[in-house]
């Protein structure tokens, strides 16, 4: 078992006092960077990259990977407690985490998020350790047609689920797609939908801008209207016994979502162009689809917290795979890590995995250690976050507003985005009053800019022939499953209609 001995050496390297200290600092810093709206792992890693010249390369990447991990855990915290997604990867966590907090179950949501993150990270580490070189080939076999098929599948999971009003869901998806199309067209380079010739639209509408607007401002307005400014919920003080009970309940009610997120997240994470944000949204959709109680999703189901949280940790490990085995970044954060590797004098590429074994396995070993450190540190901080929630809403609401604005500004340093956040917040409040689901719009603004160029690239590859999606061995089954899911509700409606008309005459 050569792999196990390499992994053993790697773990030993990771638990050396200096590296262990780096892990603990990195995870804690990451936790808070992730919890701050607007600052995500990308910013954290970019800001702290220069610090890493003080330590050897293996220590440096361990530190940055620990920040990456910590940020994945931290993103859930503000999603649950404030309803503002702490990072783009944690948007799906707000869907059910926030309703739980409003029901006084914030501790359950946070414990579920922490445990699901831990399991997701660990499952991904095991996959990574066992199959890294093999999976690198899988990642490369995904060309534009395969990626598009996968995006179609992601949309299908959101449309094809029962519960929500389907025409309203489709409207919401289309709205998100249009927002995602604003800015420069990747294929032709031409500017599109630059409304009123405002140059701010040229750079496109950031996903985080929409998410903060909808979930930060929109949610706050909604809560004010519902509660008339009263203390909205009584989240009980955190005790050891309470935490134990939450752990038991999280395991019982969140294991399914955790399992889905862990596996799906990893595979989406290793694919080029995808990363942790699409992974978490897709896992949420699938968890809702296979659930026996899909109508509970969006109203505070622990599976709805577990799936995206397991997925974003699993995917963040997964996106390290193409980086280490091929020298190709799987996500924006790994792109920066890759830059770091060049600076530390390593040549990213297919040979890194073979030649720099100490570096690579030290990093993989550190994933395991970081993951344990992150779950412990995160659980330890949960009572602090719960305490914050016990503040009256008259204090919380202005805080949410300030954090939303500051977070939106921090991400792009552009005043234009602030105005957009406010407009989206007001718009989301109105749409919500008319029962439009907003999660599909958020999904569409993330996946649209991936789906559109890959669709057009695929059709260029086939000279305009759409059969390319049905003839390639990997793309074909994914496309067919996606189409079945898309048309499932139509078939159901048809059958219900026929059942009625058949019943009446008799």
């Amino acid at each position, binding site marked *: 078992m050569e792999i196990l001995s390499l992994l053993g050496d790697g773990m030993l390297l990771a638990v050396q006092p200096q590296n262990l200290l780096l892990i603990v600092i990195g995870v804690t810093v990451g936790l808070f960077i992730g919890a701050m709206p607007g600052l995500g792992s990308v910013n954290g890693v*970019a800001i702290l*990259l*220069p610090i890493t*010249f003080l330590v050897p390369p293996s220590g440096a990447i361990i530190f940055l990977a620990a920040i990456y991990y910590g940020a994945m855990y931290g993103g859930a915290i503000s999603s649950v407690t404030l309803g503002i997604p702490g990072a783009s990867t944690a948007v799906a966590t707000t869907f059910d985490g926030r309703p739980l907090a409003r029901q006084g179950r914030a501790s359950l949501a946070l414990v579920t998020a922490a445990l699901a993150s831990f399991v997701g990270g660990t499952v991904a580490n095991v996959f990574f350790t066992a199959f890294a070189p093999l999976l690198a080939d899988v*990642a*490369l*076999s*995904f*060309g*534009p047609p395969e990626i598009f098929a996968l995006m179609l599948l992601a949309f299908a999971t959101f449309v094809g689920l029962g519960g929500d009003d389907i025409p309203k869901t489709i409207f919401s998806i289309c709205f998100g797609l249009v927002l995602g199309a604003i*800015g*420069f*067209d*990747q*294929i*032709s*380079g*031409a*500017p599109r939908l630059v409304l009123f010739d405002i*140059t701010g639209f*040229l*750079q*496109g509408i950031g996903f985080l801008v929409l998410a903060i607007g909808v979930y930060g401002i929109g949610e706050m307005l909604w809560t004010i209207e519902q509660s008339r400014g009263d203390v909205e919920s009584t989240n009980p003080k955190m005790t050891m016994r309470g935490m134990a009970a939450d752990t038991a309940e999280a395991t019982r009610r969140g294991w399914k979502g955790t399992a889905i997120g862990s596996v799906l997240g990893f595979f989406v994470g290793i694919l*080029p*162009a995808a990363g942790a944000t699409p992974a978490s949204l897709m896992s949420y959709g699938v968890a809702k689809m296979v659930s026996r109680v899909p109508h509970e999703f969006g109203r505070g189901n622990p599976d709805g917290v577990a799936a995206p949280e397991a997925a974003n940790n699993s995917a963040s490990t997964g996106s390290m795979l*193409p980086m280490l085995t*091929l*020298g*190709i*970044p799987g996500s*924006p954060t790994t*792109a*920066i890590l*890759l*830059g*770091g590797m*060049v*600076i530390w004098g390593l*040549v*990213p*590429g*297919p*040979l*890194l995995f073979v030649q720099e074994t100490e570096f690579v396995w030290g990093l993989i070993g550190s994933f395991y250690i970081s993951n344990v450190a992150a779950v412990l540190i995160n659980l330890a901080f949960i009572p602090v976050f719960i305490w914050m929630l016990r503040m009256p809403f008259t204090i919380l609401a202005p805080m949410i507003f300030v954090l939303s604005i500051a977070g939106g500004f921090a991400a*792009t*340093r552009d005043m234009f985005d602030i105005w957009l956040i406010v407009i989206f917040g007001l718009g989301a409040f109105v749409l919500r009053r008319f029962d439009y689901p907003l999660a599909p719009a958020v999904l569409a603004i993330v996946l649209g800019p991936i789906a559109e*160029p890959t669709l057009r*690239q695929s059709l*260029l*590859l086939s*000279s305009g022939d759409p059969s390319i999606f049905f003839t390639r061995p990997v793309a074909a089954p994914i496309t067919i499953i996606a189409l079945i899911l898309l048309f499932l509700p139509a078939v159901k409606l048809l059958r219900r209609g026929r059942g009625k008309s058949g019943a009446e005459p008799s």
Partner: protein
Amino acid sequence: MTVSKRVLLQLGCAAIVALAPLPSVAQEWEPRRPIDFTIMAGPGGGADQIARFIQSVAEEYDMTNRPLVPSNRGGGSGAEALIHVANASDPDHTILVTLNSFFTTPLRQSELGIDIQTFTPVAMMGVDPFVLWVHTESGITTFDQFVEQVQSMGGEFVMGGTGAGQEDSIVIAFMSAAYDLDINYIPYDGGGAVARDLAGQQIMATVNNPAEAKGFYEAGDFVPLLAFSDERLPAYPDVPTIRELGHDFSYYNQRAVVGAPGMSDEAAAYYQDLFGRIYESEEWQAYLESESLAPLWMDADEQRAYWATQVENHRELLEALGE
């Protein structure tokens, strides 16, 4: 002879007067806030790698009293970055890492109203050559075989690149015209994605900078066929240049730093000195060599003259392309 206290005092004062102004002359202007370090391309590609490398050298030697804050604005072949920098509210703290889209994007999109001669020259860090690559499993090992293969496929030969009017497409267009090649060109959002899809054999060939293909070349996945440089690249001595094949053509991507329009002379002098020191650093010189960049240092006036000739060259190239 007595040396009075007074004389000593006078000498001392003279010395202080002579020495004191020196540091303040050398450091007349300094950044007062973090420097906006805009990158004309998305994260992960060649330009981004270089920008982050430069940032790290500045950080490592503590060369700036305020940090360089990189931000990627790759939209619309760099149009997003050009607009951002041209409209910068604080030109003394806004600099831009450029590639050749600095010349081509304003030409192709005149409605943006960008005049690059209003920008402030800072430093030319080097020029990046282009090489034609195929995958090892294609079995192609020479440029002649490549031409034969493309011609035999009647328009089905697929190449990837970073988009119409971009650096690699100009090179491909020249090559296609010179050898009568019919190529199906697929645009991607960056050189990194192009290299990845060649590795996965989603596309059949690319024209990439050596930095973006080096890892796959060393692993034996990519084969270089032809270089578009003036002379053979030291790292790829067996690869012929298109010049050797009898065509008067070479093409490089500029790796330059420019300042926002309206930057004060003092600030420009500060950045010119800063990037001069980064250019001289051991790290940058080693990077130039390992990534096959050619050094091409210029002062500010030479850069302006270079811009003018490049704009003219690109105008002709794009016209020939029918853009």
